């Protein structure tokens, strides 16, 4: 049989849009079995991409909102094993690209090869592992990711040097996650001083990869600003706060509508 090359859903989205809205939520939050239904509501509401968080006990790059949701999810019984079980039916309900975001230790324990196999099996398009350094990824992980056609997403921050940004761009696929300020998730909101200059500096570097801006994107204004300087934005903590208040289908749709005009 001839091998069929299917375009990764992430790449496909970027052909069609330059204002991608990627929404993050923690798997198994607020209720263990919510993962698929939240994902479906988000797609129906108009989200262009999803990032599902694998909860971890010690998420150093995240602020209190996401840490609390992770803790709740762990108490609910979420594990990578359980998550892949839930995601078996992902592609029956969701057509937009889906990424997994998780810290490296649970992935190591699950087994990196097995993890990539499962991602491909359930239809995951990309992975974000904030505490996996680039060199380590290239030396020990890249082969598995490439074999399965899964994008690994790297982050850059305002303090990342130009040389390193070029290096990251060289080794990236899918998109580059542009961290909006020197911060953890959900720490600083609104458009900060100096931020636009930073966005512009990155924009003018003419990187080969698409860019999504994340951290501190919380409403229509910050989303639209991000879209001016990049290919879209990622919303995390603000949506987790929404789920905490009201995780119903209608509330999720209301939330996304509030951001996407």
């Amino acid at each position, binding site marked *: 049989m001839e091998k069929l090359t299917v375009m990764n859903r992430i790449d496909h989205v970027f052909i069609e849009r330059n204002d991608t809205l990627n929404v993050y939520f923690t798997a198994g939050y607020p209720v263990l079995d919510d993962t698929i239904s939240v994902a479906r509501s988000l797609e129906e509401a108009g989200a262009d991409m999803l990032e599902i968080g694998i909860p971890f006990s010690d998420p150093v790059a995240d602020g209190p909102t996401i840490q609390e949701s992770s803790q709740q999810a762990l108490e609910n019984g979420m594990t*990578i094993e359980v998550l892949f079980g839930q995601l078996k039916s992902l592609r029956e309900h969701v057509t937009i690209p889906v990424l997994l975001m998780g810290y490296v230790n649970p992935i190591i324990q699950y087994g990196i090869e097995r993890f990539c196999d499962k991602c491909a099996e359930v239809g995951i398009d990309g992975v974000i592992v904030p505490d996996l350094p680039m060199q380590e990824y290239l030396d020990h992980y890249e082969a598995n990711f490439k074999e399965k056609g899964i994008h690994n997403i790297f982050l850059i921050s305002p303090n*990342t040097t130009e040389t390193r940004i070029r290096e990251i761009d060289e080794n990236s696929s899918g998109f580059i996650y542009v961290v909006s300020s020197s*911060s*953890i998730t959900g720490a600083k909101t609104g458009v900060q001083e100096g931020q636009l200059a930073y966005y512009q500096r990155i924009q003018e570097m003419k990187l080969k990869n698409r860019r999504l801006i994340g951290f501190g994107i919380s409403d229509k204004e910050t989303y639209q600003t991000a879209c001016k300087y990049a290919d879209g934005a990622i919303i995390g903590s603000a949506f987790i706060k929404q789920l905490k208040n009201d995780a119903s289908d209608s509330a999720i749709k209301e939330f996304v509508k509030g951001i996407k005009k």
Partner: protein
Amino acid sequence: MSRFNVDEKGYYGQFGGAYIPEMLYPNVEELRQNYLQIIESDDFKGEFDQLLKTYVGRPTPLYFASRLSEKHNTKIYLKREDLCHTGAHKVNNTIGQILLAKRLGKSRIIAETGAGQHGVATATVCALMGMECVVYMGEIDMARQKPNVERMKILGAEVRPASSGSKTLKDATNEAMRHWINNPDDTHYIIGSVVGPHPYPDMVARFQSVISAEIQSQLQEVEGRNAPDHVIACVGGGSNAAGAFYHFLDDESVNLIASEAAGEGVASGRSAATTTLGKPGVLHGSKTILMQTDDGQVVEPYSISAGLDYPGIGPMHAHLFDAGRAEFYSITDEEAMIAGIELSKLEGIIPAIESAHALAVLENRRFERDEVVVLNLSGRGDKDLETYIKWGKY
């Protein structure tokens, strides 16, 4: 090349590295590029040695414990780190790191602390250098270790409660890392042990290596040889052990013995015996051995000694364990308390309960009569008085 010290990539065997979010990369990279050049400069060495001598009180004595030796039928020397200013070896590292921070042009210091010992040692050097100091401490630890919270405040530090997760040392470490992410330019993070991303484990080990350097010269004087048969030290994260082992790492005629906290017993579910209960993984920026669930979630440890109450060990120790270079013992709360009280009665020294875990090895392992055993007495017991009183059996 050293078999047991760090390699040029920041690894000890398969352990170590720098598993950090990109937001921390510039800070850690700045440190990595500069630390060796700075700490090997004459200017730095001069100031460091001078402060260790006149401020910390080094060299600390190597004391022949004759009654303890008689009891255990061997020759036991105690390396008296308990006599350092602030009561433990921790200050060797904080002096080194604050001098480094100054040379990197940093104006603020942050630190994490469990029982408060490293926090006090950090607040102390910040007062000494007139630098702003913020110490993160788990909310639960703050309640358990009130006197140390007040000591830090007297020294001018701000103590911030870590109220996330399990509200203890590992969460204080998470909070300090987050603070550093949010304040990358003017702030240096003084990690208290041989843990964290490279270059921290190596940097802290180098600052603590003064312990084994002194052991070498002091032993030469009294025994006519510069290496003992055994070195014993307790391991939480492992900074005092790293310092006591450092100059003997590649001299395999010296047997290295590490003592971990078994808490209420390794099988009790309330333990901090990392090498017995843990598996390889990534914790606080380095690949090491840590206590975790099958799903890779970090497990909350327990020990009567707050300084050993950490779910991981430094990557150097993970390698020493993995390669069979060091013997590891798991010492229960009860064994440690008995050993602490024994030293008090035999030698007139009340040890920190951390150090009492090292002392308890003497009951668990036989040494030859003519062997030379150096035991690193990492801290004094003043801070543990309440625990001794509660224990009561003295």
